[in-house]
């Protein structure tokens, strides 16, 4: 804490005294917890896949320093830097996302992965934070100059991004960026009536997806009637894990659900947490996620730059929504969506992309001159 003097005006010194150290601490705590959970859950999955026992753990442990580095680097940026890099990355990753259906690798029925020099990359993961920043810029510009090109461009942006995601197809992620976009519109004061209409449109889109995409339909059907189908199997095992764990859990490494769940190390990691560490640990984990989101919102309230508010809020909504959707589907509140628990689940692309997004959030919410008065 005392590494930097108050009067230190170097880049790092200013960073240390202006960044939100509570949020940073919470995010690093999530990363640490993710290491523990990867070590707990992934060996069983790796063995089942006839991989080296610590295959996933080793990979995740090599991703995490990169992710932390990306997060810290991003948090050093100025809002202008965030905007520039965000827009640039949006263009790059939109192009890559559009390319994946043609040059990508099909995994579990969807083409979302690119292989670049021995590394697999999921461009759509990076598209999400870049989209939040770009949309924030366009919407803020639109708000400042209602007759300018801001709003139409923001609409085109959403259509292009959602379209690219639906081509993969990745309905869940398309819905998520739509949610981010709509939250940003809501924040700049969109009339409530229009908000209701848009929500209805999204609901209609969801129903449309149910009838258009076979896997969406089967997941929803399985949610309504869990006995039918393989998704129902994962959810049923997951619920058993929570019941078997109880309040305090069966103890680290004592869980069994990881031996039967194909996605124990990624989408269903919360079930492993629940079984081995108990419901109380799950509640603490939820509290950390909620803390990051609410704290970030709170910090945004102190900024009077509309782009900063919209971008930070968009990134936080994306982060919080991802955590919520993952946890809610693991406890069978909503149909299962193949989405990771931020920083806790295994996954290189998603972890690094989230780290970049949260780094940008930290950068945007740093204290700086010209801030509004604290309220």
């Amino acid at each position, binding site marked *: 804490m005392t590494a930097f003097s108050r009067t230190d005006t170097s880049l790092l010194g200013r960073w240390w005294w202006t960044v939100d150290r509570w949020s940073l601490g919470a995010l690093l705590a999530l990363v640490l917890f993710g290491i523990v959970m990867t070590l707990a859950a992934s060996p069983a999955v790796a063995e089942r896949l006839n991989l080296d026992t610590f295959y996933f753990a080793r990979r995740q442990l090599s991703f995490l320093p990169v992710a932390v580095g990306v997060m810290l680097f991003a948090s050093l940026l100025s809002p202008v830097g965030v905007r520039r890099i965000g827009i640039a990355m949006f263009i790059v990753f939109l192009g890559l996302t559009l390319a994946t259906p043609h040059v990508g690798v099909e995994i579990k029925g969807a083409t979302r992965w690119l292989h670049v020099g021995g590394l697999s990359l999921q461009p759509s993961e990076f598209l999400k934070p870049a989209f939040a920043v770009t949309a924030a810029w366009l919407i803020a510009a639109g708000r400042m100059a209602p007759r300018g090109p801001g709003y139409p461009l923001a609409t085109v942006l959403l259509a292009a991004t959602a379209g690219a995601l639906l081509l993969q197809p990745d309905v869940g992620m398309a819905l998520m960026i739509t949610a981010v976009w709509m939250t940003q519109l809501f*924040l*700049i004061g969109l009339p409530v009536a229009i908000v209701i209409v848009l929500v209805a449109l999204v609901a209609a889109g969801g129903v449309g997806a149910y009838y258009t995409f076979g896997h969406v339909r089967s997941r929803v059907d399985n949610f309504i009637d869990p006995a039918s189908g393989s998704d129902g199997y994962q959810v049923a*095992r997951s619920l*058993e894990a929570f019941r078997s*764990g109880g309040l305090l859990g069966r103890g680290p490494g004592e869980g069994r659900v990881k031996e039967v769940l194909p996605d124990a190390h990624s989408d269903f990691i919360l079930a492993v947490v629940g079984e081995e560490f108990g419901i109380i640990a799950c509640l603490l984990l939820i509290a950390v996620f909620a803390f990051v989101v609410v704290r970030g919102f709170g910090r945004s309230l102190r900024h009077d730059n*509309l782009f900063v508010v919209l971008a930070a809020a968009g990134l936080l909504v994306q982060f919080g929504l991802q955590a919520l959707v993952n946890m809610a589907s693991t406890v069978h509140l909503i149909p299962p969506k193949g989405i990771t628990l931020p920083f806790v689940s295994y996954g290189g692309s998603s972890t690094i992309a989230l780290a970049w997004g949260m780094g940008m959030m930290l950068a945007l919410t740093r204290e700086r001159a010209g801030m509004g008065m604290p309220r």
Partner: protein
Amino acid sequence: MSRRAPRARGRQPAQLVLPLPVNGGLSPQSPAEHGRLRAVDVAHTRLVVVGLCFLLAFCGVVGRLVDLAAGSDPNLGLALANSATWEAARGDIMDRNGVLLATSLPTRSLYADPRDVIDPEHTADRLVALFPELNRSQLLARLTHDGRFAWIKRHLTPREQHAVNRLGLPGIGFRDDQRRVYPQGVVAAHVLGFTDIDSRGLAGVERHFDASLGDGEALRLCLDVRIQQIVREELLAAVREYRAIGGAGLVLDVVTGEVVAMVSLPDFDPNHRGRSDDDTRFNRVTQGVYEMGSTMKLITAAMALDSGAITLTGGYDASQPIRRGGHTIRDYRPQNRWLSLPEILVHSSNIASAHMALDVGGAVQRMYLNQLGMLSPLALELSEVGAPLVPGQWRDINIMTIGFGHGIAVSPLHLAQAVAVIANGGTFMPATIVDRGDRLPEPKPVLSAETSRTMRALMRLNVIMGTGRRADADGLRLGGKTGTAEKIVGGRYMRNARMSSFIGVFPVDSPRYVVLAILDEPQGNRSTHFYATGGWVAAPVVRRIAERIAPVLGVRPVDPADVPRVTGPDGPDRRRHLLLASLRTAIADTEGWRGAPR
């Protein structure tokens, strides 16, 4: 979008905070700056709303988790962990009195996970040193195969488990297992059958009831292990004494159709079925079908009486052998005269029985055989049931040979089932191996009660003065019929390869049990004057079985002193007097004339 501004202006709380000089009040705000600040302020207000929505959603997940924790079950994880390797223990099998005949003991079995075996050679060496019966090369193949599981040795004792643990070898482990145990050993081997090493039923009731036993349901048989033991002892003694190649013994409850004892010799120990061969596993009572010989004459007589083809005083001329189509039907001990119905059974006349069957007629004979269950496979709860061999064409010669027990092959249990109908008042009750309790199937009447009564008297008469004399158990009012069938070997009847049998019913005044004893290829010895017929070798077995099981089954004998010994005057009429006196005694026995205690 441009119409949004008036609405935002209408927001009083937002406007309330606006007048605060955001820029420190250093300069007046430009209109553009003012609009920007108002937009930021709306965003801040709405951000609070979004934040609250998030908190609400997180609370939803929290509520769901608390709900799951409230429904937690500490045993659930255990069940989850064990579900893959441990199913419910296989159900016990017991006899009618609850004596345990088969049970499953929990054991531990040793397996390897080849991926975790670090040094297969070393592991194999250490394990072979501990279990010399293991084949090293086979073990090595299992330890190195490309999979995650291989059994090494099943059903270890705790001492062996301890020894394996002390080796400290990686990649091997124990799994809960179960082993089938038959505490009574050989006694009911053919009924129980056996399982494979994974406790799946392969024979007997273990196979027939595999599904329910596998689900952990217990099975109660109608077998009485005490009776079973007695029948086996007596049958085994006779098989040894007469050097027979096999034997069959059966005690059947004539009222309920329950098999109280069923013995097939040679038998095997289901605990060590690996040492048994096909011959010992063969169930001669249900699986083997044989030409039963003279015991079938009971059935011919019963159908003749019941259909009205003959009366008790009727009879046939048995002075001439019957020649028909290259076959000659002779009597074993020719009387060369007209024989009345009682005499036909007492002397076991083939000729008279053939005439009697012809009088009954083919269609009626078939109808009765069918109703007595002799033309279809047994509806018994065992996999090992043989189908009767019946002639394809039902010509006169077939009618006649079936009349004295040749030309049709049925299992011993078929015969006992039919004789039970004759004895029990005329109703057919399918035989069973399972405790029926009070749930008896609907009885099917086949014979009249009158026919049954007459036939019981005739069976009793045969024991008082006929070929079944050596079956006359003291005071038990036992009736029955001998049978001696020549076996067909290579298409020809063999004079010295016989199936010698006796089927008895007791007590004839109120029949409770059919007792059947069959010896396969018995050899006569000095004590039988080198006869090996049913009357000489099988009838004494039934007598001893009846005498030993009667006290167990609660059949009370009458005092032998109360039973008048039948004597007749010497002279030319001795035979007639003897027959009439014996018949009177037999009928009196059947009617329970002495009011014998039951």
